[in-house]
């Protein structure tokens, strides 16, 4: 190893040591900063967390007939959109997400019109929205775990 290479290697070591020192100082500042003011945080209770799970977003996009994203149920006569009802007694000013209240309600949209013509999932979704209902995701629906009344 030449003298020049040795010098370079030594310089690199010094830079690394300096960087390590800086990093350590930053960590110390962070730790000191954390204790420099009193901190209190209150953990949410399980009941409160469960309550917020009745907040849902609505699907506003077009729903293709092969969608697996939207909440549907098939009672033996074809897929029907789950139409959830926002709870009017809850404050919905922050919607979305919408609050379905303590006892989530919903209905299954008809998949035939009054003339007996089949309705696509998208038609059903539009009917649901037109009646003030919410088209929700399959994931959101499954979070209610059978607790949605009216279905």
């Amino acid at each position, binding site marked *: 190893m030449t003298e020049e290479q040795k010098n370079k290697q030594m310089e690199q070591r010094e830079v690394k040591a300096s960087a390590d020192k800086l990093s350590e100082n930053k960590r110390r500042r962070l730790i000191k900063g954390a*204790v*420099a*003011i*009193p*901190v*209190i*945080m*209150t*953990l949410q209770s399980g009941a409160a967390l469960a309550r917020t799970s009745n907040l849902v977003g609505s699907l506003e996009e077009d729903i293709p007939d092969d969608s697996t994203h939207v909440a549907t149920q098939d009672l033996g006569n074809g897929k029907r959109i789950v139409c959830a009802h926002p709870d009017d007694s809850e404050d919905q000013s922050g919607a979305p997400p919408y609050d379905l209240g303590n006892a989530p309600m919903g209905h299954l949209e008809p998949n035939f019109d009054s003339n007996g013509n089949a309705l696509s999932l998208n038609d059903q979704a539009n009917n649901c929205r037109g009646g003030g209902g919410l088209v929700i995701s399959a994931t959101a629906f499954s979070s209610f775990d059978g607790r949605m009344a009216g279905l």
Partner: protein
Amino acid sequence: MTGAYWRSVSFSSLQIEEWGGEFTVFQPNSGKTHFLNQMGLHILLCLDRAPTSEDEIFVFLTDQFQLTLDQNFSQQTIKTLHRFDELGLIEKVRPESLT
């Protein structure tokens, strides 16, 4: 000017656990669990000993944690005192009850 006096409420009922220099405090009266850093807990300990004025709390904390007392620190500490008060962990003491 010494600021309001504060004291702890039902401190003995609190269930306190240390987690690597920080603390979880279960408050049976409300069923809530709080997370406090060392300074937060020191405030509760201080107020459990005796009713203490805000100025005395500032001095106690800056002394314990070797900090400089400035306006920002005082404001942050007062905010925390009010938060403790909202949660029912401490309460203001009427001046006449100190005499």
